[in-house]
């Protein structure tokens, strides 16, 4: 099995996540799309760890740290979202315009 198919899968997953993050209206769906992009990066890290010569474990360590950071990001992101929902009574991306000029 070669390295390229795994990287290609990462590219496709990243593209799906980017499309969702740029077009979806619901804030939670945008957060989900960001998770997809983080997962694509993790696939790349683990694939490079597996295919380096000799196989290195550091890529997996990095992916593990990236998972922990992603979990923290989701917790804070959802907290911000709930605070926003309480203030504006909306979960729509077009209502997030407090800093728009």
């Amino acid at each position, binding site marked *: *099995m*070669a*390295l*390229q*198919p*795994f990287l*290609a*899968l990462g*590219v*496709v*997953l990243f*593209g*799906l996540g*980017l*499309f*969702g993050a*740029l*077009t*979806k*209206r*619901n804030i*939670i*769906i945008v*957060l*989900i799309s960001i*998770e*997809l992009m983080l*997962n694509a990066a*993790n*696939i790349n890290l*683990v694939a490079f*760890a*597996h*295919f380096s*010569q*000799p*196989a290195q*474990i550091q890529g*997996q*360590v990095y*992916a*593990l*740290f990236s*998972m*922990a*950071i*992603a*979990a*923290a990001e*989701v*917790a*804070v992101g*959802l*907290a911000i*979202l*709930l*605070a926003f929902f*309480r203030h504006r*009574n909306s*979960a729509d991306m077009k209502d997030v315009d407090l800093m728009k000029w």
Partner: protein
Amino acid sequence: MIFGIPITGQTITYFLLALIIMISGVMLMSLQKVMHMAVALGGVFLGVAGIFILLGADFLGMAQILIYAGAITILMVFALMLTQRGDDTESPPTNSWRVGGVLVFVVVLCAAFLYVLRGTAWPVTQSAVDPYTQPSVVLLAQSIFHTYTVPFELVSVLLTVALVGAVVIARKEEE
């Protein structure tokens, strides 16, 4: 051999998992109800966990199932339920031209990435099914608890800070 790809158990597993991931991902982007999207998200995460296990990262695959397919999907469903007001249908985009433009941009970006991927001469093209000398959990534990002890402890500090911060941000303000 089909298209120069040998038919092995690993290849078949890869294509099945890639199919699951892509179908779930496209469903995630095209479904109407946000709750269905959250379920499709679980499919993507489980497929990625399978890819991790296929790449010899058993512990990461299990962590992916626990953290992503378990915790994050449920957390998203929870947040969706908290912010529902009657209809749970994703509202249509305000500007359909913008969706088309983003679609073209993403497709061109992915095509460019794939073109570069194909053209690059990677130093290693083939690899054993399990290239690690020891079980990957053993290597991972040695790496985390010997080489990367300080970052590991810092991650625990970060998680605590994020937890407290999330509670403080989401808390109802007293009048």
